[in-house]
Every structure is written in structure tokens, then in C-alpha cells.
């Protein structure tokens, strides 16, 4: 490694804050400070010359910084007021310390988090979601409206959350403040979400909506926005009670070519929402609702299963081995995140009665892409068996680790959940291989072949304890009545806790045809 790069690492290692390019230069180049002073004191002509020299130094150090960023040793944190970049070590405290009889030499390499998945990463088979913030940010969190006095407080919390999350935020029981929310606030939230690259979920209990006019007016606005999505929580009785309202919701979504996201609250009463990487939920029967904010997912790893199939076939043993390596990697990331949680998440920790509450129910995710569901030439049962075996191994590992930590007196939570990955989660995923299934009428849902396929979705939803999204794609002319009847059948007959209807393909005056597919 170049001497300058070693010096940059050393300076950042000893710094308690992120440092700008200028600050880094001041620390490693003794001449830089002198020149900075001279530029103020000297004549205009001489000053120009010095400025050129300073710019050259900036370019030089940026060259080395970029090399370190590419090696994932450093990452850019922010832009300062004058647009100057600030940097931090990706791992700040992995250095060894002295033990009796052992003095380990520090090296720059030790600053990188070395994980037993890097070989798979090189093959683009395994990918960290948002590698730059894999450790120091959470994937997602939930804000519980019930614990807030007004919507302005929620907005403040949302603002704090943008800095600590790299994917999605869910506002649970959004309807609580319906009376006081205006379109301007919603537009501002969306703008910030867009700027920060986050997905905001408004989770709404359809049964609690009393002022339909006010809601629909607001919903029209929400459905035009790209970084806010709504999740409707309901059961079959509420669907019938709110049939007219839901028809209007369907029409608005259809007009905007958007998605209707539904949570079957009979099957899952906990928050269930979506990010860029995929769905999120809590793998618990219940959670303490006496908190304002909860971390949901800490770190995610995405596995392109099709690439695994191409190299290893349906080899369960190799698949389970890979899962074990991913679990080890997530544990390593968690260890650092937990140690530094007071620093990383300090802005939100005091919002709950106890600081520990914030990460009490959080989990890590392994997301599967192209895992062979309804893929021609892939044995469905073998695939499900493979995932099942991997899950058993992963559960055993999580259990062992919790026992170890508890035995050390360091009681903590370590949990890994499976889920599906969205195509938008990351670049370099293999092309989608799934085969969409077609449903032309509600009656199709009772056909033996379709029932079998929906049962597979049930099994996948059970395996994917971190959340699964079964998507239906209505095409042709919108028939809200027919779609709501289809929803009713799904709510009543299938153990599918979360599903969606995507109206992106609604067009023309054709007979209603629905496709559904597991978002894979």
C-alpha cells in the first residue's frame, strides 16, 4: 500500500470524527498548512501560484482516497457546507490491542472487515446490500404513531431516521393523525426521501379510516409520489365493511399505475412493509408497542441463487455451507454495529424508555433472488428442501451464538431471517427467471393447479420469516369489484400474510386478466 494511503488510514483511525479532504491533508502534509497560511498573507499574483499548488495537493490526496474507497477501506460520509467531501474508515475499531505475551502488528488490511463471503462476492453470487453503509446504518426501522402526540413529532423523528437507515422506514398506524396531515407535509416527506434515497411506508389500518373524503384527497396525492408507498392492513370483515372505499382506492392506484399493498392482519399483526431491497417484517409473535421507534433490519446480504445453481446445481450441502458463511459474515457485522450503536444511532436511542429497546427485535436478512420458484427445469420440491435445510442450519447457528453471548454475560439478540430480494435491490443480478402464473377470474383461485401453486407461495411465505410479497398483476380494463373479490378469497383461503396488486399493466378495454407471481 502506498505510504500516503497508510497515512490517511492512520489519521482517520486516530480521529473521533469524519474528516474532510483538507483536514486529511493538514494532518499528513506539513507543507499544506504553511501554504494555506501563505495564501492569505501574500500578494495576489503569488497567491494564485500557491492556490495552484494547493489544488495539486488536493488532487493528489483525492487520488489516494479514491483508491481506498474502491478497496472499501474508506467511505464518503457527506458533503460539507462548501461541497467538500468528508471521509471515514469503514471499520474504525478493528485494530488489535496488546495482550499479555502477544503484541500483534497492526496493518492497514486489518481495517477492512474480512468476511467469508468475499469469494462469492467476486463471482457476483453474493452481495452486501449497500456495502458502503453495511455496518453503520440499519436497513429499516418502524416509527409507531401511537406513541406520538402529533404528526409534527413524527416528521422530526423521520428526519433523524434518514441518517441511520439505508433502505426503508415504516410509519405504523399512519391514519392516527389523518386529521392534521396536509399535502404539503406529504410532499416534503417525499422530497426528503427522494434526496436521501429512502422508501417511506405509510401503514394504514383500513378499518380505522372514518373521514373517507379527507383520506381520499390525501391518498390521491400520496399515490402520485414515488418514494412513499402505502400498506393497507385489513381482514376479510374490514374488506367488506370498507368495500366502497377500497374500490375508490383501487381506482386511484390504477389511474396512477401504482401498487396496492395488503397485509392480512389475521395472519400478521406486526408491521410489514417494503424497501428497495424487498419486504420487511418482525419474526415475532408480538412486539412491545410501548416504544416510539424500533430497528427492524440491521444488515442484509443478497444471494443470487440462479448463479449458485449454475455453478453448483441443486447441491444442498454446498448451499447450506454458503448459508453458514453468510451467517458468520452477518454476525461479524453485527458485533461491530452493536459495539458502536451508541455512536451510530445516538439520534434516536433516547426516543424509547430504554436505549436497549431500539434493537430489541431487530434481525439480519438473507435475501434470495431467482431461487427457482416456478422456473422451468428446476425441481420445486428440491428447491424448497434446500432452503429449508439452510434455514435449519442458520437457526442452529443463531441459537448457538445467542447461547455463547449469554454465557459470556453479554445478553444480546442475534437473528437472521430469510426473505426475497427485489430486482431493484442491487445491480448485477441475473435476469428474472420466474414464470408468471395467470388468473383470469376469481374462480381460477379454486382450480387444483392454481391452488397447488398458491400453496407453494404459502410455504415460501412461511420459510421467509423476514417477509414475502406475492404480487398479482391485473391487466386490461379495471374491474374493482372483481379484484376485491379475488382479495377476499386470498384473505380467507390462503396463509399469505402480505400480497400486492400491481396496476402498472392496466390499459385498454380488454377482459380482466390477472397475473400473479412471487416477487423473486
Amino acid at each position: 500500500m502506498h505510504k500516503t494511503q497508510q497515512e490517511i488510514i492512520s489519521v482517520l483511525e486516530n480521529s473521533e470524527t469524519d474528516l474532510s479532504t483538507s483536514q486529511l491533508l493538514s494532518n499528513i502534509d506539513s507543507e499544506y498548512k504553511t501554504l494555506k497560511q501563505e495564501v492569505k498573507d501574500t500578494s495576489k499574483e503569488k497567491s494564485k501560484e500557491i492556490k495552484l499548488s494547493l489544488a495539486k495537493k488536493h488532487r493528489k490526496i483525492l487520488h489516494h482516497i479514491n483508491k481506498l474507497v474502491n478497496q472499501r477501506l474508506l467511505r464518503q460520509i457527506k458533503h460539507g457546507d462548501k461541497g467538500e467531501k468528508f471521509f471515514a474508515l469503514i471499520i474504525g475499531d478493528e485494530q488489535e490491542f496488546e495482550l499479555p505475551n502477544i503484541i500483534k502488528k497492526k496493518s492497514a488490511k486489518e481495517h477492512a472487515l474480512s468476511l467469508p463471503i468475499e469469494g462469492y462476492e467476486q463471482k457476483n453470487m453474493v452481495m452486501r446490500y449497500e456495502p458502503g453503509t453495511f455496518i453503520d446504518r440499519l436497513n429499516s426501522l418502524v416509527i409507531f404513531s401511537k406513541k406520538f402526540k402529533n404528526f409534527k413529532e413524527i416528521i422530526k423523528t423521520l428526519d433523524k431516521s434518514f441518517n441511520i437507515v439505508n433502505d426503508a422506514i415504516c410509519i405504523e398506524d399512519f391514519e392516527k393523525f389523518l386529521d392534521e396531515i396536509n399535502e404539503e407535509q406529504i410532499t416534503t416527506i417525499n422530497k426528503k426521501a427522494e434526496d436521501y434515497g429512502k422508501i417511506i411506508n405509510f401503514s394504514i389500518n383500513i378499518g380505522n379510516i372514518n373521514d373517507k373524503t379527507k383520506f381520499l384527497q390525501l391518498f390521491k396525492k400520496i399515490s402520485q409520489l414515488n418514494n412513499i408507498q402505502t400498506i393497507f392492513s385489513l381482514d376479510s370483515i374490514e374488506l367488506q365493511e370498507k368495500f366502497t372505499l377500497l374500490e375508490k382506492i383501487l381506482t386511484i392506484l390504477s389511474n396512477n399505475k401504482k401498487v396496492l399493498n395488503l397485509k392480512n392482519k389475521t395472519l400478521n399483526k406486526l408491521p410489514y412493509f417494503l424497501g428497495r431491497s424487498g419486504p420487511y417484517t418482525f419474526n415475532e409473535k408480538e412486539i412491545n408497542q410501548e416504544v416510539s421507534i424500533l430497528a427492524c433490519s440491521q444488515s442484509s446480504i443478497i444471494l443470487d441463487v440462479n448463479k449458485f445453481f449454475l455453478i453448483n446445481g441443486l447441491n444442498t450441502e454446498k448451499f447450506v455451507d454458503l448459508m453458514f458463511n453468510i451467517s458468520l459474515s452477518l454476525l461479524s457485522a453485527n458485533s461491530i454495529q452493536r459495539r458502536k450503536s451508541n455512536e451510530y444511532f445516538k439520534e434516536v436511542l433516547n426516543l424509547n424508555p430504554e436505549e436497549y429497546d431500539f434493537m430489541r427485535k431487530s434481525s439480519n436478512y438473507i435475501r434470495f433472488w431467482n431461487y427457482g420458484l416456478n422456473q422451468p427445469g428446476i425441481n420445486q420440491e428440491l428447491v424448497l428442501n434446500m432452503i429449508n435445510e439452510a434455514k435449519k442450519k442458520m437457526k442452529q447457528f443463531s441459537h448457538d451464538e445467542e447461547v455463547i453471548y449469554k454465557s459470556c454475560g453479554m445478553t444480546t439478540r442475534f437473528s437472521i431471517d430469510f426473505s426475497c430480494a427485489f430486482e431493484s435491490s442491487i445491480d448485477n443480478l441475473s435476469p428474472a427467471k420466474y414464470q408468471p402464473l395467470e388468473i383470469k377470474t376469481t374462480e381460477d383461485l379454486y382450480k387444483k393447479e392454481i391452488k397447488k401453486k398458491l400453496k407453494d407461495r404459502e410455504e415460501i411465505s412461511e420459510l421467509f420469516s423476514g417477509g414475502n410479497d406475492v404480487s398479482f398483476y391485473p391487466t386490461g380494463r379495471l374491474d374493482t369489484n372483481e379484484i376485491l373479490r379475488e382479495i377476499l378469497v386470498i384473505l380467507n383461503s390462503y396463509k399469505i400474510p402480505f400480497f400486492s396488486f400491481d396496476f402498472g399493466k392496466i390499459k385498454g378495454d380488454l377482459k380482466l386478466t390477472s397475473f400473479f407471481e412471487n416477487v423473486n
Partner: protein
Amino acid sequence: MLIKGKDAEEVWKKALNEIMEKGEEHIDNRNRQIKEIMNMQLEIQAPNEIEKPIEILNSFEKWKYPPFEEIKNFILSKKNISGYYYNYGARAFNFNGKNQVDDYIIPMLKKNDTSKRAVIIFYNPTEDSHFTRKDTPGLIQMDFKIRKGKLNVTSIIRSNNMFFGWPANIFQTYCLLDYIAKEIGTEIGTITTFSTSAHVINEQYDAINKVLNLK
């Protein structure tokens, strides 16, 4: 029962062997089958290579032990760490506002090197003595005494998984011992642990036997 040994590895293996051979079998409150010896006292005479048992555990590659830095941080961090139910550091350095280490132990031992009062308490009855509380500190107290110019420590542990837990417990004890010894300028003496329940769990028996067979 007292077991003495020159270093951590020797003491650990002797203790595991004793429990495997003489431990009383029963089902614990978590419905696990365990072997247990009550009131086991272990003394490490020279705490060199205190990390050796952890290194042995990590050699299994079946699991991953908490990194040294994390264990050290857990005992030396003066603040609560949000990822844990509690941490020993916050209890030692900020027990209801009382810094038991910097404001009590260190100045007292500096003033009176024969003192028998240098005690740190980790268990907080106000927080921990509730039926509903699931997780309470296993490490109850540490007692520091300077004898013959060396600082010795005794850790009292109420419930001690001797396979997975003890290696971290002695490392935590060592970290605090080292911190205090440096502050008062003494050499490090012995590390003693007193475990009122020293036990191992049946799902660990195979791994324990492998450790015992290591040369």
C-alpha cells in the same frame, strides 16, 4: 472445590474435566440437561495467555466467539450500550451515578494498599431482582486485593457456563484488573473465579470432550 493452575488453559481444562466426571446431572430452568458443580473455585496463578481458551473455542469454526475487542468493550465501556440488555462496564463505571472504579477502587488502593474493601458490584437489585426480568448479570462482583506487591482479583459468578462463558469471564476480569493495575502502578497477580453454579450443557458435551483431548 478449589482448582489451581499456572495458566487459563490448564485451569479451564481441569475444571471442564471435573464437571464432566463429577458434575451432578439435572434439568435447568430453561429445560436443558446440564452437569453442575456448586461453589467451584478456580485460580489462575499467572494470567499469561488469558485468551487461550477463547482461541481454542474459535478453532472449532462451528461458531464464532465474540471478538476480544467486543468483550473488552463490554467491561470497559462506561456507558450503556444499546445492543445489550446491560453491560458490565456501565455497572462498574456508572452504577446509579457511582463510578466504582475510578472514584473508589483506584484512589482507595493507592491510599491503602492493604485494604480489604476494594469491591465492585455488578448486580443491581433495583433493576435485576424482578421475577419477570429474563436477563440479569452472571458476574455479581469483583474483589481486588494487593498482596506481596501484586494486584489479585476474585470474580463471583452466580451462574457460569464453564465451556462458553468462563473464557469470556476471565478475559473480562483480566481487562478490568489490567486497567486498575496500570492506574495504581502494581503488577498483576492471580485471577480467581468463584462460581456458585459451574455447569455445562449437554449439547456441548462432544465439543468439551474434543477440548479435553487436545494436547
